[in-house]
């Protein structure tokens, strides 16, 4: 009697809940793969599946950072611009010094720093994340244009191409980067105490603070992580394009948010979600785009379909919350 109903609900209910939760995204992905494989012969080929993973990598890596931010109850709209700015600056460093390693290190450091800057404004100035990152979205993008004078930077060190073209144990290097990122993020979120702190802060910031959690530090940390992971995404994208472009990453924040939301992380309430769902969500988006191209759907319609998919995902999220009450 003391417990509210759902603890005692039937197995059927639990299965339903699982389906709508993490598992649901998986099933959605398999359905999608099944549909496209019926519509096209090449879709399920090993080569194309590999393509899908490579295409999903940049978004997946950025979305991992976004997941941390959203679980902590915040939002980061600046990732696309942050990607452009770190690309431009690190590419320039690579050109000037000729050192690939230095360029990469600078990209990672700069990304983390810019993320921390977002976090500082949110945590220590008490400004809403939506506004702060909306502002830095323009600030970073504008800086990228100013520094590059609007021109793409080409002639990057040869070594960078290896990331995009090479493979290890038959799996493309880019996919390895994605796998390592997700294993690390999964570990941080589920096996370290900081993971519990992130969930608690997102669920109820004031309660977490009064319980002795340094919520400001947690907030700076999640934004820094988002910046760090975005800069990894920047390096991956540079190696694929073999150049750094000030227009790169436009609207990436939205695809990253979409991946997290499709994966079951809740935008409306912090403290809900997980990293595995986001990976599935990112692969789902890449599969959808890839499949639509293969079956010759125009790029205009692709966007319409993407919008519908996100609506469905949000509706499922809403329904899931309702039944878990």
């Amino acid at each position, binding site marked *: *009697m*003391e*417990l*509210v*109903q*759902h*603890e*005692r*609900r*039937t197995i059927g*209910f639990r299965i339903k809940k699982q389906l709508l939760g993490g598992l649901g995204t998986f099933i959605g992905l398999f359905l999608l793969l099944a549909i496209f494989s019926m519509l096209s012969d090449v879709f399920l080929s090993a080569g194309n599946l590999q393509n899908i993973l490579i295409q999903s990598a940049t978004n997946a890596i950025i979305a991992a950072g976004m997941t941390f931010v959203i679980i902590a109850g915040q939002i980061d709209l600046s990732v696309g611009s942050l990607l452009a700015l770190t690309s431009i600056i690190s590419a320039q460093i690579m050109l000037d010094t000729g050192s690939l390693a230095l360029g990469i290190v600078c990209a990672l450091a700069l990304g983390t720093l810019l993320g921390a800057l977002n976090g500082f404004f949110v945590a220590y100035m008490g400004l809403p994340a939506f506004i702060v990152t909306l502002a830095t979205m323009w600030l970073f993008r504008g800086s990228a244009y100013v520094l590059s004078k609007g021109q793409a930077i080409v002639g990057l060190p040869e070594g960078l191409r290896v990331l995009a073209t090479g493979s290890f144990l038959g799996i493309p290097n880019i996919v390895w980067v994605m796998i390592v990122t997700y294993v690390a993020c999964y570990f941080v979120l589920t*096996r*370290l*105490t*900081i*993971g*519990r*702190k992130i*969930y*608690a802060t997102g*669920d*109820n910031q*004031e*309660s*977490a*603070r*009064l*319980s*002795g*959690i*340094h919520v400001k530090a947690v907030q700076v940390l999640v934004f820094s992580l988002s910046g760090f992971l975005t800069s990894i995404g920047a390096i991956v994208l540079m190696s694929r394009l073999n150049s750094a472009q000030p227009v790169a990453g436009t609207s990436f924040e939205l695809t990253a948010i979409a991946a997290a939301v499709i994966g079951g992380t809740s935008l409306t*309430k912090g*403290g*809900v979600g997980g990293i595995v769902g986001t990976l599935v969500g990112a692969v789902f988006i890449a599969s959808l785009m890839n499949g639509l191209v293969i079956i010759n759907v125009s790029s205009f319609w692709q966007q319409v379909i993407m919008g519908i998919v996100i609506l469905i995902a949000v509706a499922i999220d809403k329904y899931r919350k309702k039944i878990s009450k």
Partner: protein
Amino acid sequence: MTQRDAPVLEFKQISKHYPGVKAVDRVSFSVGKGEVVALMGINGAGKSTLMKILSGAETRDEGEIRIDGKALPVKYTPSEARAYGIGMIYQELSVLSELTVAENIYLTREFLKFKFPPVIDYKKLHEEARRQLSKLEAHHIDVKQKTGLLALPEKQMVEIAKALAVDCKILVMDEPTTSLTSEETNRLFEVIRSLKKHGVAIIYISHRMDEIFQICDKAVVMRDGKLVDQLDVRHITHDQLVESMTGKVFKRLDKSAGTNRRSADRKKLLEVRNATDRKWIKNVSFEVYENEVLGIGGLVGSKRTELARLIFGADPGFSGDILFQGKPFRPTVPHKSIRLGLGYLSENRKEDGLNLGRPIQENIILTDMKSVSTGLAWNRKKTNQVFEKYAAQMGIKGKADTIVGNLSGGNQQKVAIAKWLHAGCKLIIFDEPTRGVDVAAKAEIYKMIRDFAANGSGAIVISSEVEELVEVCDRVLIMSKGEIAAELQADEITHDNILSRITSRERKVT
């Protein structure tokens, strides 16, 4: 068709099942015209489910509800329920603060000058709103004022007026006094008495026993979904009522651990000198001894919570001196205070006391993660052991991964307290430790607080319930307007003494 003594409301064999649970099990009782019935029961007894059925928020599986002898349909919506004459007043008020009093009272049923374009007839609206408020003898409320600017009891009057405006025959009041001072509570009781005169049938739900005896005619007691007793309030005692609710014999607490050691050599655990925040708290000085439970009483608004939050470091602006465990202590931020051994159970578990969306075990470990981790890594096994320990010690009903928001109020409060026991603090400030908790859980919480303090630690209990201070404290401070107004020792701690200090002080100041 209705006779004078025919019941206004009848429940006949009402049942409601949730998978695996009978929340309400063949409950029948009736409420007469002008009768105030106390619906009693510990948390999870089925009171709220029954009231949700009445209000149309839930559908009953079996049974019949009759109003003035007429059976209601099996399924109806909350707005249809209002049309049947069922009004609900909850602890959380539903008035909209940006609208005026009159607009709130006639929300969605405004008087229109024309159908189209719909222009509101404000003159009539204000007149009618005034008429409703005068039924409650609340003439002093300006109907044109924004509701948000009113004090809490006035807002409650508006809420009641809103229910009356739909010609309500049955009024359900769920914990209406939780945020009211004793003065305000008395005013609410006046309103209830005048509603009685107008023939409104009232169902009154409260965990505060003394209120039941003051205002109710009959007590209907539920336990495990069943109706176990219908008692005439005039003929029973407090303890009898508690026994009926819990099914257990009621025992008073043993305070010897704290009082026996009241010798000259007792050690000061906390010493606060001239604490101020330059806003509300004015030069407050007091001390807490080892093994002692210090109570702080006072009216709502006497700034007891502000004092606690200031000392704990939840709010900025502290100035003054504090010696804690013999060392100077300066409150800055909660996580530092906790590390130094000072804890604070917040007064509102829903707002800032718990992470309702997270599992029980994660809530408990928040205050001390070092003890459940190896380096940076979170140790789930140790976490589970911590959960098992407190679940057994405090009788928390739920599994380690049960989401706290799904627990009953009493269990939630136990989790909140377990969280602070886990913190390993030397001194814990318990702010309203039993708010919204039933009598059975209350007794357990009192025992926990005493046990905690008995081991060389100390506790401060802030409470608006006089009975609670009497039951659990060794010494009681009375606060008023940000100052310590009185101090009561040992035998002086009685219900009447505390009440008179609280109210006399109020009269002096105003």
